[in-house]
C-alpha cells in the first residue's frame, strides 16, 4: 500500500513538473507547443546515455555516448540539451507561425523525431529502447521510492517557486501581455521574440529535467514512452487545471493524469481490454471541450493569482510628472 501511494505521488510530481513547464510556455506566453513531450524524451534519453555506461544492457544494444557521469550531472545535461534543442526549434518555427500552423508543425516535428529514434538504432537503440538505467542510489525498492519522491517533490517545489517568481516579475507581465496582444506590447517598445525564446528554453529545460527524473525512476525508456499523444494530454491537463496558474498546472496534472488513471482502476473493464486508458482519454476529451466552452480559465483560473497586497498610496501626479520629466 505504501509502495502504491509512493509510486502514485512520484509520478504525480513528475507529471506536475511537466505541466508546470508547459504552463510557462503556453499558460504565460501563449506559445502552443504540441511537441512538449519530445523534450521530456530528450531529457530522459540524454540522462540515460550519460549515466548508464556501455555495459548496462546485457544483450548489447547500440546507443550514443554511454558515459558514466553522476546522476545529477546527467540530469542537468538532459535539461540543458532539451533547452538548446528548444531554442533551435523556436528559432525556426515559433517566430514565424501563427498558433494553429505552429501546432501542425510541432506535431509533425514530434512525429519525425519519434520516427527517427524508433528506426535509427545507433542513436538510442531504436524501438527496443534503453533499460537498466542506473538508480540514483543503490537501495531497496521502497526506500528508492521515498528518495525519488523527495527528489521530485523538491524539484517540483523549486519550479513552482520559479513560476511564481516569474509571474510576479516584470518579465512575467511582459510575457502575459505578449500573449494577450502583441501589437500593444510592440506599441510600448518591447520586441516579442527574445522573451519568448527565453521562456521557451526554460520550459524545455524543465521538460528535460522531468524526463531525466522519469528515467531514473523507471530505469527504462523507449519510443513507446513518448508517443506524440502525450503532449496533448499534458496540454489538456494544463487547460483543465487552469492555464496560466501554476497551481492550476499542479491540479491538472494530479487530477487529470494521475487521478483519472487511478480512478479507472476501480472501474470494471468492459468489452475489449485495452479500455482503461481509452476511457480515460475519452473523459479527458469531454472534460477538455466542456472546460473550453464553459470555463475557459480552467479549474483554478489565472486571475486568482492577482493578489499583490494593497497598492501603495498614490502620490500627487504633478510631482511625479515633474520628477519623471527631469529624469528623462
Amino acid at each position: 500500500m505504501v509502495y502504491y501511494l509512493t509510486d502514485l505521488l512520484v509520478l504525480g510530481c513528475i507529471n506536475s513538473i511537466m505541466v508546470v513547464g508547459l504552463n510557462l510556455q503556453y499558460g504565460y506566453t501563449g506559445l502552443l507547443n504540441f511537441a512538449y513531450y519530445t523534450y521530456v524524451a530528450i531529457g530522459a534519453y540524454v540522462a540515460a546515455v550519460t549515466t548508464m555506461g556501455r555495459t548496462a544492457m546485457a544483450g548489447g544494444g547500440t546507443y550514443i555516448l554511454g558515459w558514466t557521469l553522476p546522476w545529477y550531472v546527467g540530469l542537468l545535461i538532459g535539461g540543458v540539451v532539451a533547452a538548446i534543442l528548444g531554442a533551435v526549434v523556436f528559432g525556426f518555427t515559433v517566430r514565424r507561425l501563427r498558433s494553429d500552423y505552429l501546432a501542425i508543425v510541432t506535431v509533425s516535428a514530434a512525429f519525425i523525431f519519434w520516427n527517427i529514434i524508433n528506426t535509427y538504432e545507433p542513436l538510442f537503440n531504436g524501438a527496443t529502447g534503453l533499460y537498466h538505467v542506473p538508480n540514483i542510489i543503490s537501495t531497496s525498492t521502497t526506500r528508492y521510492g521515498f528518495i525519488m519522491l523527495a527528489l521530485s517533490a523538491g524539484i517540483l517545489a523549486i519550479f513552482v517557486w520559479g513560476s511564481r517568481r516569474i509571474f510576479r516579475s516584470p518579465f512575467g507581465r511582459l510575457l502575459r501581455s505578449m500573449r494577450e496582444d502583441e501589437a500593444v506590447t510592440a506599441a510600448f517598445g518591447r520586441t516579442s521574440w527574445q522573451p519568448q525564446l527565453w521562456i521557451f528554453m526554460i520550459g524545455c529545460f524543465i521538460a528535460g529535467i522531468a524526463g531525466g527524473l522519469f528515467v531514473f525512476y523507471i530505469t527504462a525508456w523507449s519510443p513507446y514512452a513518448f508517443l506524440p499523444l502525450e503532449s496533448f494530454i499534458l496540454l489538456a491537463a494544463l487547460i483543465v487545471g487552469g492555464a496560466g496558474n501554476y497551481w492550476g498546472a499542479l491540479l491538472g496534472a494530479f487530477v487529470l493524469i494521475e487521478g483519472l488513471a487511478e480512478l479507472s482502476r476501480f472501474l470494471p473493464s468492459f468489452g475489449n481490454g485495452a479500455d482503461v486508458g481509452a476511457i480515460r482519454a475519452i473523459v479527458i476529451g469531454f472534460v477538455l471541450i466542456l472546460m473550453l466552452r464553459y470555463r475557459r480559465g480552467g479549474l483554478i483560473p489565472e486571475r486568482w493569482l492577482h493578489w499583490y497586497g494593497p497598492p501603495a498610496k498614490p502620490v500627487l501626479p504633478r510631482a511625479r510628472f515633474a520628477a519623471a520629466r527631469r529624469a528623462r
Partner: protein
Amino acid sequence: MSQFLVAVGFGLATASVVALAAVAVSLQVSVTNFINFAYGDFMTFGAYIAWSATRHGINLVPAIILGGIATGLLGVLANILVFRPFMRQGVRPVTLLIAGVGLSFIVQNALTVIWGAEPVRFNVTLGNSLHVGPFLLTPGDLVMFGTSVTLLVLLHVMLAYTKFGKALRATSNNSDLAKACGIDSERVVSITWFLAGLLTAVAGVGLVLQESTLDPTTGFTELFVIFGAVILGGIGRPYGAMLGALAIGLLTEISGAYLNAAYKTSIAFGVVIVLLLFRPQGLFATKGKIS
C-alpha cells in the same frame, strides 16, 4: 527505371486516397476557416462502420456507402455540438484547434472501446497485384483509384454547376456577403460537413484496403499526410488539394522506394514543415482564400 515507375504507381494509388480526404478537409476549411484535428479519426470511424457492415454480410460497396453516410452525420453532429457553439462565441483559432484535439481523443478512444485496439482486416479478397502498364497495382488500388476519380469528378460537377456548389463557393469566398445575398450559410456549412465526412469515410476505407489492417490509430497517423496535401495545394482550395495529394503521394512513394521505407511518413511530415515555414500559401498560390 522500372522501380521508379512502380513507385510512381504506388504514389498514384496513395494519392487517390489522400486526395479524397484532402479535398474534404479543404472544403470544410474553406467555409469554416479552421482546421479540424479530428479528421483522421473520422476516417477511422468510417472505415470501422464499413468493416462492421461487411461482417454482417453486407457487400463492400454498400458498406462503404453506409460508412460514408455515418461519417457525414458524425461530421454534422461534431459541427453542431462542438464547433459551432465555439464559433458563435467568437473564440481564437487556437481554441478551436484544441477542441478538435479533444474531439479526436473522444472519437479515437470510443472506437477503441467499441471495437478494441487490435488491428482488423477487411474480409474481402481482391486478388493479387496486376501489372497495369509499367505499374504494379492491386485490384484494390485500381478500384480505389477509379472510385476516387469518380467522386472527385462528381464533386467538381457539383461545385461548378449546381446551386449548392455556387452557394458553397460564395460562402467560402466571403461568408458575410453570401449571407447578405440570401444564402443560408449555416445550412451550407452543415451540408459541407456532411460531404466532408462522406469523402473522408471513403478515403478511410481506401486507406485500409491499401494498408490492409485497420485499428483505431490508422486515420490519425494519416492525418498529417493529408494536412501536407492540403497545405501544398493551398489551404481551403479543394482543387489545389487534389494536386497536393498527387504531389505528396508521389513524393512519399518515390522517396520511400529509395530510402528506408520506415521513413516514408516522416518525409511527408517534413514536407509539411518546410511548406508551412517557407510557403504557407501552397505551391499554386494566386489571389485566393488563405486561412
